[in-house]
């Protein structure tokens, strides 16, 4: 166990973290939703973020993805201090987020969703008339879905007619297509059937293969243990521990989640 900490430290020294969050605080009125949290994500690593309801997981990642602006603390991405005032700025920095609630338009097809907000256009009459390049969108979305091994029967159909898993896959494909350097997933398997949950988890593995780091929030510990390299546990706004997945088990993690264990407290002892 002693060795572990040293190993993690050594890893940190040899490789630059992709993302470093330092002493992050976010308050909502009198409530401190995120309280002095530090954590790092390294290239090609899947980090699980777990904790009870209202632990502050979503708030933490929303600070990273530009939805919220932190009250205190710093965020470094690829070595640079970043301050995103809007989600689009985080996306421009290639931090892509798969939200708890799907950020897709159900009335549009796969291609339209993948290219939403960044639609390719063909120019006519010297740029006077611009027309959506549907052919390009279709071809590119077929390519990316193929690369991720996702089967979509009909690319022209509105995605609300697809299954929940397929839709989640579209969201992930969109992030990959736009060259995500960090993928944040907030309960991506929520409301999915068993088979679909497995598909999404396979996609997470696929992302790791492609060296895209992932922060995965989930209440399903077996999923967390199946795909993560490291687990960060939050409790009432605090980070209470951080463990290598191979060196812990769900029983221990649950104890941290409910507040029975707490590294900050235990280190005082």
């Amino acid at each position, binding site marked *: 166990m002693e060795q572990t900490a040293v190993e993690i430290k050594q890893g940190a020294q040899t490789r630059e973290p992709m993302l470093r969050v330092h002493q992050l605080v976010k308050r909502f009125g009198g409530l401190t939703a995120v309280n002095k949290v530090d954590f790092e994500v390294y290239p090609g690593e899947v980090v699980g973020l777990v904790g009870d309801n209202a632990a502050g997981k979503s708030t933490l990642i929303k600070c990273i993805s530009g939805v919220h602006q932190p009250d205190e603390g710093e965020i470094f991405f690829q070595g640079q201090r970043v301050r995103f005032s809007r*989600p689009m700025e985080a*996306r421009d920095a290639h931090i892509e987020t798969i939200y708890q609630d799907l950020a*897709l338009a159900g009335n549009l097809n796969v291609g339209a969703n993948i290219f939403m907000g960044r639609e390719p256009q063909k120019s006519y009459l010297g740029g006077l008339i611009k027309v959506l390049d549907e052919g390009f969108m279709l071809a590119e979305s077929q390519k990316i879905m193929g690369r991720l091994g996702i089967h979509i029967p009909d690319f022209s159909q509105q995605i609300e007619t697809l299954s929940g898993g397929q839709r989640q896959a579209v969201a992930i494909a969109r992030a990959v297509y736009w060259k995500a350097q960090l993928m944040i997933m907030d309960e991506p398997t929520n409301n999915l059937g068993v088979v679909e949950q497995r598909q999404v988890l396979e996609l997470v593995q696929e992302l790791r293969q492609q060296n895209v780091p992932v922060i995965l929030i989930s209440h399903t510990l077996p999923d967390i243990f199946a795909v993560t390299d490291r687990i960060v546990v939050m409790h009432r706004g605090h980070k209470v521990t951080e463990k290598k997945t191979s060196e812990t088990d769900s029983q221990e993690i649950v104890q941290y989640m409910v507040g029975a264990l707490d590294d900050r407290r235990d280190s005082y002892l």
Partner: protein
Amino acid sequence: MAVQKQTADLAGLAILTKERQKQLALLLSRVWAWVFLATLVLFFVVSVRQTSGGAVNFLTVRNSQNILVAITPVFLLGLGQTFVIIAGGIDLSVGHMMSMASVVSALAIRGVYNEGAPLFISVVAGFLAAVCATAAVGMAHGTIIAKLKVPAFIVTLGGSFIMRGVALLLSDNTTVIGLPPGVRDYGNESLLYLIRGEGGGIYFLNRPEVSGALLRSMDRIFPYPVVLTAIAAAIGIFVLKKTAFGRYTYAIGGNREAALRAGIPVDRHVIKLYMLSAATAGIAGFLSTLRYTAGSAVIGEALLMSSIAAVIIGGVSLFGGAGSVTGTVIGALIIAVLTTGLVMLNVQAFWQFIVVGVVVILAVLIDQSRDLIMGRMESE
């Protein structure tokens, strides 16, 4: 193993047919308005002939042109509205907006003409005045809706009252007259003239100087207002289906939050939509001024309801995210065919309203039953 495979195949077949059923339901919901329109026309052709003992024909050139002229304002009001409702909004101000534009364009035409400008320039000035004035009001609506987060229903309801007041104020509570007489031609002449029989012929862009029986038998095909409206419809279809502007409109109506997160400038787009809606109402007002050679502060009042009815019959969902300009064209046509046909059958006016009302509700019911069927298939 073999048995397992067979059942899997069977299951596949079942999914396929379910898929087919779904597509069928979709198709039906898409074409029902066309079918309904065709049925209506057929019904009136037969019933008008029968009730008149064969003396009156519903499907004459003249009658079809009358119908086209009748839908011009309804469709124009519905055109901008189509975009607004697809994006999840509503614009209740278009009726009085049209009246305001009618008054403003009449004042502009008269003013510019009296300053000594040629007729054509005066008419162009009237067009620009109508479009600019309405777009400015639309911008105010959109800004209050998008930036100050006041519900569109409230903002445009208030705006509607204000436009009504402004129209009456500018027109001094009466009709704006004294326009140059040539204005009438812009509003009433047409692309083609058709005179049948002896001494007749087809005339393009050039009204033949005829009188008496020949004049009475002359048909005007594609009056200028109809041409302008057709161009507006074509542009509307193009913009909604083929451009990023249209795509943003659907995306915002489909999932506003997703559109925001995808970096679509949602607020700016919403403002543009209310400007568009106001401006198409402005064009309708301008055209009515040409048609009647007068600015009227009440001309649009009765048209708001019809235009929203056209949009809804055309399949635009009030929840946003779905609909098309073509649908609104059909919706407007259905209303016009209904009212014209019922008039020709000598049915009393109140029945027109009742029938249109029933059709509106029917249209939404059909849309919903499609969702119901689709939803049931999904959950199976």
